[in-house]
């Protein structure tokens, strides 16, 4: 039988669609917010509904700065770090919107580094195409999960158990690498104000509005980072916080309260904190949350037993 070329194209594309959709369904989490084969691997999607009381959002400075397990250990507050390296604020906003459908945190920490990453509308278009592809074929989104594949996971297909290896701890990635920052003191006073671009501004406002609508306290914070921080950025973030009546914690100017040792606490010469730096920031944030008094200590709550189990593994990993 001779098949004409147009029919071949249709046949090929149909097969491809079925294959991609099938692959998404079988090997990877069924949908972005549903748990699947990789239930415990790498996503807030696997957390039970309404169990996360605070969130950390932003780019790589967020991911590397606050470890929810450290805060759980000392205070019993449940939090999740959903920062994504290189994330633009529009993506932060859309991710937050999605997460808030399942979780109802009382507090959100927004890291400010992404405020100064301006992006063109073209990037927004790029992102829109990207998001649609991810929705259409989840395999496109979760493709990197092949790294964490484990034979035990195949059991999940049958009994929905979750034996996948844990690679991150509530969104925080353990990086103990030390690459010292040798540049000396970087905090200099200045009157200048670093302008925040139109698009980031728009999405900051969207995030502020979203938090207001859902009655969430939004707190801005800046990770200590000599490579990215300037006094003018501090000034503009402070102005933005004041304008919107938000609390703003700038760790760059809190050397007395959170003494960063730049010989030990950074993984890449002052660009990001390493694990040791993140412990200092997390300790401060834990104490801050305790002072705020709005969150609950769940350490003795049986519903949160899995957190204690995770803590054992986390302590082993971090050699505590």
């Amino acid at each position, binding site marked *: 039988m001779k098949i004409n070329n147009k029919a071949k194209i249709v046949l090929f594309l149909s097969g491809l669609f079925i294959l991609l959709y099938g*692959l998404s369904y079988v090997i990877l989490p069924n949908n972005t917010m549903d748990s699947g084969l990789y239930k415990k691997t790498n996503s807030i999607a696997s957390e039970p509904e309404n169990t996360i009381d605070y969130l950390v959002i932003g780019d790589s400075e967020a991911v590397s700065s606050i470890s929810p397990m450290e805060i759980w250990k000392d205070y019993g507050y449940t939090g999740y770090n959903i920062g994504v390296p290189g994330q633009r604020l529009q993506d932060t906003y859309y991710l937050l919107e999605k997460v808030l459908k399942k979780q109802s945190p009382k507090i959100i920490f927004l890291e400010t580094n992404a405020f100064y990453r301006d992006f063109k509308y073209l990037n927004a278009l*790029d992102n829109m*195409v990207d998001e649609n592809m991810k929705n259409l074929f989840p395999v*496109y*989104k979760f*493709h*990197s999960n092949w*790294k964490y594949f484990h034979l035990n996971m195949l059991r999940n297909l049958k009994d929905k158990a979750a034996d996948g290896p844990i690679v991150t701890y509530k969104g925080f990635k353990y990086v103990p690498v030390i690459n010292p920052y040798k540049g000396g003191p970087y905090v200099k006073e200045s009157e200048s104000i670093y302008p925040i671009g139109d698009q980031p501004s728009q999405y900051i406002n969207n995030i502020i509005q979203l938090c207001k609508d859902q009655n969430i306290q939004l707190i801005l914070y800046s990770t200590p980072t000599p490579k990215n921080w300037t006094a003018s950025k501090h000034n503009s973030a402070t102005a933005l916080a004041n304008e919107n009546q938000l609390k703003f914690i700038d760790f760059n100017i809190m050397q007395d309260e959170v003494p960063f040792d730049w010989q030990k606490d950074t993984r890449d010469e002052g660009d990001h904190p390493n694990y040791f730096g993140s412990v200092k920031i997390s300790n401060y944030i834990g104490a801050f949350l305790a002072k705020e008094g709005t969150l609950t200590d769940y350490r003795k709550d049986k519903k949160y037993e899995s957190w204690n189990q995770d803590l054992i593994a986390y302590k082993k990993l971090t050699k505590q």
Partner: protein
Amino acid sequence: MTYNSPLYLFAFFPLVLAAYYISPQRHRSRVLLLASYIFFYSISGKLLIYLLLSTLLIHHTGLWLDHCRSEEKKELAVTQDKKASKAVFAKKRRHILWFGIGFQLGILLLLKYSNFFVSNLNDVMNLFSLKSILPATHFVVPIGISFYTLQAVSYLVDVYYEKIKPDDNLERLALYLAFFPTLMEGPISRYSQVAESLYEGKQIQYKNLTYGLQRILWGLFKKLIIADRLNPLVESIFNTPGNYSGITIIIGAVLYTFQLYADFSGCIDMTIGAGEILGVTIPENFRQPFFAKTASEFWRRWHITLGTWLKDYVFYPISLTKFGKKLGKKSREKFGKHLGQVLSTSLPLFGVWMANGFWHGTGWHYIFFGMYYLAIILFENLTEPAVVTLTNALHINRERIPYRIFQTVKLLIIVFIGELFFAARSLSQGFQMFASIFTGFNWSVLTDGSLLKLGVSIQDFFAVFFGLVTLLIVGVIHERGISIRDRISTWRMPARFGFLYAAIIVVLILGAYGEGYLPVKLIYAGF
């Protein structure tokens, strides 16, 4: 928007193809031109004006040269002193050509190199305790200017030497300079190779579509599985070289070389694939470069279109100047055929490698990179007879495997050292890194897990290894003159489909993109 961005792959390119497909043939070139300008504008915005200016200028200069030639013919028909008249017109044409080239290169020099000259000049002034005389100005450089400027110059020179006729069709010429798949990283095509087929607006054929998409997929394989996955490790080493030494630096140089090859040749695959779909044969830019026997052969297989451009528009013109000819003649007379030949080519080769280094960017390490290859190629040329004599005396068969392995290892060492300096952020950093190979050599980094702390996990290494082995196998097959796509096309449909599905899934799963990965820019788009 780059060739591997979701916007390009899933929206822009399919939409352009659809618009091209449904348009009447006479309008198809307009679809491509409009798409090319949208593409350019999406990256460089208002700097599109420079591309438009270059287009208008070469169009006008080409016609001006033609007009001058017509005038000459008319003049020669009536004048008595034909020789004098010819000389006058030859001079006029030369002036027109230099005006055109000067304008094209002037824009490039101003935008890309002015800061380099100014800062070096200021450094020299400071050396003599004088004040900096010029302010350093950073211009925003339009995308692809290094590539389209060379295309523009080749067009003018080819018109000047009457290799091609000047094009009075502005639209065709505009498309030749702006064709979007070649905008970011070339290859540097000649007007005679692509302009006609670009303008023709051929119908999309089934075979072209399948071949083109397969080529694009192969490009994505190289870019996403090898180049982008290696990026964190390469960046870690070259951004903070002071933290590493010995084997780690060697690994950095080796993996950067593979990254660069996979990135650049992968982009070219995507470009050639896009061209194939549209019925345009874009020249190849790579031919298994690591299978070369010598450094000069390597450069005939790596970035081929830049090499041929430099040969045609730098090497030959310098060789054919009065001085070049005289140098050749004298050298051969004084030093004999071989040595004379090597010496006489040293001047044009100096021009070629200076231009090669300088074209890549405004850093002394690029100039060093060019001079490094100049020295190696001259040395190879100089010692070739001695090598032949020596191998014959030792009864070494130069075509047999052991000698070929020796040649390959020698070439790889040359290439890796070259790329170490090429990738270094400055010349001094390049020397520091090179020196640190010997000062901090320690085998234990291979086993103590420190390599896994550079942003690349064991799984990443597995994916890269798989990619490189595939690249090697495909290279061996191509080297034997076998077309894999021709072979696949003879398979039965289920086998064909199955193979392509598997290839798509491999790229989709093993590619380094999406969450947790920063998009990696195309390396050569920055040159």
